[in-house]
């Protein structure tokens, strides 16, 4: 090996010297032979001639010697590369088109692949993340598919299941941090003390909770990295310091590592107190880590059986089941469909780009038939020719790949604006945060691989073509080579058909998405979402001596906030609500009975969503009142209980009967006073724009006060302009009240339509690109066909054909291919768009109108692409055409 390298070096650097020596040696040999011949009687010139003849070609000998040098292949490689570069410079239109087309295809693929890699393929930085599952409870009889479990569920599962190595319980919440500067609302997590061990977390500083630290008297807290950096400037002196959270003193015992923020984007983490845990009634989160030998199905069945058993022990769990979803899957459930759609779309785009480049290369090779034939005649083997072509196509592909990478970088930057930083978890009133997209090493490797693969495939095309080359014909003036024969035309025809079909599929997808998305955005959510600001206020009542433990005081405080906000100029109306529609903030649902009706049969329950609102809620949101009256300030704790119901509720539970003046009994708390239905309001979409409205019962907040509520305010100016004034108004009432979750309604809506928006935007871009590329491809092929048939066109014209006839001839020839492509694309689309139904809203995947429109569009574009070269054909001068042999 070493000697090989040494020889390589030597021959690289001493090439000319070796050459000169060899020259001298060969010359000496011939001279000696000539001397001998002269001695045997020939004249000197005759001796020289014979000696030279006998030796043969010194050049060939030198070549054979050089071939044995280790650097030989390098030399030839380098000369091939130089040759390729010369070719590119000579036909720069071809080179630029090929490189740009490849850049487009490869760049788009790299961008989407990096998106998919970042979002779908990333493993979470947690211990055994592939065995973590989310466990929800469900009550399908009531139409609830995913509900957060209660603390008691967690304890039951921990005791009675065998499928899990460990279970983890957590609760999202917010808290107020006071005592150092402005009071701050922080996001928090309450966890079971196995937090660190369950996820394999190693704290950056300090420690995490010990398993036995489950009593509230410890009041320990762990900070997140981001919060520690923000609030404490990452100072290590923060350990063992005190912190006032919700009016109580906590001791900071550790700092969490920064990569945990992808999974738990919170500020502080506190442990569950055991008593608290038993009483925590719902909307918690439970993760389980499956045993290595247990799969999801086995765990699901075990849990199913267990829930059945539990429902006999605990009456509140009757009819409840459990739902297990792998954590990694649940996190991307929302965004997976559009991303997969994008993968397919960008793959189609790449195929179209490849078809175009293949066409380009084939046509280009035709122009070089004479050169190739000459090489073959001079003795080049197929291997050498193949190497030349492969080098050319690989250089093109690498250039395309490099430019594609730049394009991908730019695209990723743009995409990052549209990819939301958090996406909803479907059906679960929860959010998941996404990492930011970036180009990673596997993606770079992927790009390189694609480029090289393209280079290989494209390089082989002209080689396969040359195999059928008739060298004699090609060397003649009229050389058109094998590519113009039936075989070449068949290849071209196939490429056009394939391109048309793929373009059709992409444009159909885009067309369906455009309709779907615009219909989605036009859906009436049941309220007016314009100029609506929302923010959340949580009264800090966790402290033992908090004044807000008294419900009347809670209600009164919110009323004072409301009065202050309503006085702000620029606020047209304002109200408080427990949960903002479409916000995925929380759930509030429960069971009830209608007093005047017979109770439901045993085993069946009536269930509905509940919302606590202030009286101005309906005018502020512009939800119509359909019957009866709205809440007034008289509907408070001193007066009879009242409720409002929405139209969906009436349709579901009252059919044709009157709902007004009937009474509901709601299983809230200990007492269940009858509440009179005093009015019916319009339905509101709460879980999503593409979902059905759910039956909802509204309670006046003064009769059902909450600790935290959201303000909704209709503003005359854009919400962000009025926000400072609103904040100030709230602070005039209580200067220490933190405000959080500030979002205009427009932002909330764009958040829950992000999946469709991504699909819509990117698919449109891809479809446009595909259409453009296909048009270019069709133009290229037609143009080439015209060039081939110039002679024939001349003959026809001489024989009396009109210009319009020639035009029609060329266009029809092209359109024939395109029509086949469109038909193929049609069938392919009928099969493929089925996969899109998850993303489509109120548009059928086989919408005939869309299909017809796209077919028409494609035919139009193709006709135009054929028309331009056809016009050229029609303008051909017959005499020049005939001369062209």
């Amino acid at each position, binding site marked *: 090996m070493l000697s090989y390298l040494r*020889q390589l070096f030597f021959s690289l650097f001493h090439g000319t010297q070796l050459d000169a*020596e*060899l020259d*001298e*040696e*060969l010359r*000496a*040999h011939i*001279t*000696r*032979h000539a001397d001998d011949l002269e001695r045997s009687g020939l004249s000197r010139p005759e001796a020289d001639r014979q000696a030279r003849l*006998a*030796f*043969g*070609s010194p050049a*060939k*000998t030198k070549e*054979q*010697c050089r*071939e*044995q040098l280790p650097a030989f292949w390098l030399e030839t490689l380098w000369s091939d590369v130089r040759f390729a570069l010369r070719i590119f410079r000579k036909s720069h239109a071809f080179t630029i088109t090929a490189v740009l087309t490849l850049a487009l295809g490869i760049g788009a693929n790299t961008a989407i692949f990096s998106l998919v890699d970042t979002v779908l393929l990333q493993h979470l930085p947690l211990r055994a993340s592939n065995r973590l599952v989310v466990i929800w409870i469900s009550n399908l009889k009531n139409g609830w598919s995913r509900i957060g479990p209660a603390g008691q569920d967690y304890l039951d599962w921990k005791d009675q299941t065998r499928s899990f190595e460990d279970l983890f319980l957590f609760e999202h919440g917010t808290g107020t941090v006071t005592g150092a500067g402005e009071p701050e609302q922080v996001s928090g997590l309450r966890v079971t003390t196995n937090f660190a061990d369950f996820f394999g977390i190693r704290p950056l500083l300090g420690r995490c909770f010990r398993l036995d630290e489950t009593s509230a008297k410890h009041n320990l807290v762990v900070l997140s990295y981001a919060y520690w950096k923000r609030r404490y400037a990452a100072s290590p002196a923060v350990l063992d310091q005190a912190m006032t959270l919700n009016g109580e003193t906590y001791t900071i015992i550790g700092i969490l590592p920064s990569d945990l923020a992808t999974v738990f984007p919170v500020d502080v983490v506190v442990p569950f107190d055991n008593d608290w845990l038993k009483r925590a009634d719902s909307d918690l989160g439970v993760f389980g880590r499956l045993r290595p030998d247990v799969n999801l199905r086995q765990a699901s069945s075990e849990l199913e059986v267990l829930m059945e058993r539990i429902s006999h022990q605990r009456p509140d769990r009757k009819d409840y089941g459990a739902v297990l979803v792998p954590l990694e899957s649940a996190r991307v459930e929302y965004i997976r469909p559009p991303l997969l759609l994008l993968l397919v779309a960008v793959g189609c785009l790449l195929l179209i780009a490849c078809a175009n480049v293949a066409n380009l290369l084939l046509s280009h090779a035709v122009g070089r038939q004479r050169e190739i034939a000459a090489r073959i005649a001079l003795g080049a083997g197929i291997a050498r020719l193949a190497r030349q072509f492969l080098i050319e196509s690989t250089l093109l592909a690498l250039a395309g790949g490099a430019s594609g990478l730049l394009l991908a970088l730019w695209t990723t930057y743009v995409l990052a604006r549209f990819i939301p930083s958090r996406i909803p978890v479907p059906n679960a009133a929860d959010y998941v945060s996404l990492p930011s997209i970036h180009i990673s090493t596997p993606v770079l490797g992927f790009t390189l691989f694609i480029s090289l693969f393209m280079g290989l495939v494209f390089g082989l095309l002209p080689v396969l073509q040359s195999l059928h080359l008739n060298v004699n014909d090609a060397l003649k003036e009229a050389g058109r080579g094998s590519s113009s024969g039936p075989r070449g035309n068949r290849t071209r025809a196939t490429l056009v058909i394939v391109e048309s079909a793929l373009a059709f599929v992409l444009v159909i997808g885009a067309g369906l998405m455009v309709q779907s998305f615009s219909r989605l955005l036009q859906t009436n959510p049941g309220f007016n979402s314009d100029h609506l600001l929302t923010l959340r206020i949580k009264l800090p009542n966790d402290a033992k001596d908090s004044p807000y433990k008294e419900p009347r005081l809670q209600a009164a405080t919110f009323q004072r906030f409301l009065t202050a906000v309503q006085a702000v100029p620029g606020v047209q109306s304002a109200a408080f609500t427990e949960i903002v529609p479409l916000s995925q903030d929380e759930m509030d649902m429960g069971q009830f009975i209608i007093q005047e009706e017979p109770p439901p049969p045993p085993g069946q329950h009536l269930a509905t969503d509940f919302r606590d609102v202030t009286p101005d809620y309906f005018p502020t949101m512009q939800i119509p009142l359909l019957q009866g009256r709205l809440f007034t300030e008289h509907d408070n704790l001193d007066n009879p209980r009242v409720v409002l119901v929405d139209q969906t509720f009436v349709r579901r539970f009252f059919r044709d009967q009157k709902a007004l003046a009937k009474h509901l009994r709601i299983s809230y708390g200990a007492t269940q006073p009858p509440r009179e239905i005093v009015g019916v309001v319009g339905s509101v979409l709460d879980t999503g724009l593409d979902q059905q409205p759910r039956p909802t019962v509204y309670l006046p907040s003064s009769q059902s006060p909450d600790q935290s509520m959201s303000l909704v305010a209709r503003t005359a100016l854009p919400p962000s302009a009025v926000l400072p004034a609103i904040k100030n108004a709230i602070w005039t009432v209580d200067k220490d009240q933190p405000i959080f979750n500030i979002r205009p309604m427009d932002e909330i809506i764009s958040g829950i339509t992000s999946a469709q928006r991504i699909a819509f935007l990117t698919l449109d871009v891809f479809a446009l690109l595909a259409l453009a590329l296909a048009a270019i491809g069709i133009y290229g092929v037609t143009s080439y066909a015209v060039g081939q048939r110039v002679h024939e066109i001349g003959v026809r014209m001489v024989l009396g054909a009109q210009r319009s006839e020639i035009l029609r001839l060329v266009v029809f020839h092209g359109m024939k291919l395109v029509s086949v492509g469109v038909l193929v694309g049609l069938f392919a689309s009928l099969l493929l768009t089925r996969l899109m139904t998850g993303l489509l809203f109120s548009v059928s995947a086989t919408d005939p109108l869309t299909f017809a429109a796209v077919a028409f569009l494609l035919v139009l574009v193709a006709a135009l692409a054929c028309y331009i070269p056809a016009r050229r054909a029609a303008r051909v001068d017959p005499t020049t055409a005939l001369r062209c042999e």
Partner: protein
Amino acid sequence: MSTQADLLPGTLDLLILKAVSLGSLHGYGILLRIEQISRGALLIEQGALYPALFRLVRQGLLKASWGTSDNNRRAKYYELTSAGRKRLREEHEGWNRLVSAMGSALAAEPERS
């Protein structure tokens, strides 16, 4: 009947090694000596000689050095290395084995029953 034998492929190297073993030579001299020691029956194609010499030098079986020839001209002389000598011996033995095997095979008579 032709007194000249066709050169089997691969035997050129062996002949060169043998020729050089009898004394260091330049390329033309090797050509002459092969003709001489084969009594004119083996004629080497001149163009094939130098690539073979080049190869043998690269394989370390021959050593090349520039010197002056008899008529005061510069010439590249080739001589055997120890590896070359060893190879020559091995190839010679292999050749003898081949020849005797072929000989006995070709001399086989039909079996008398």
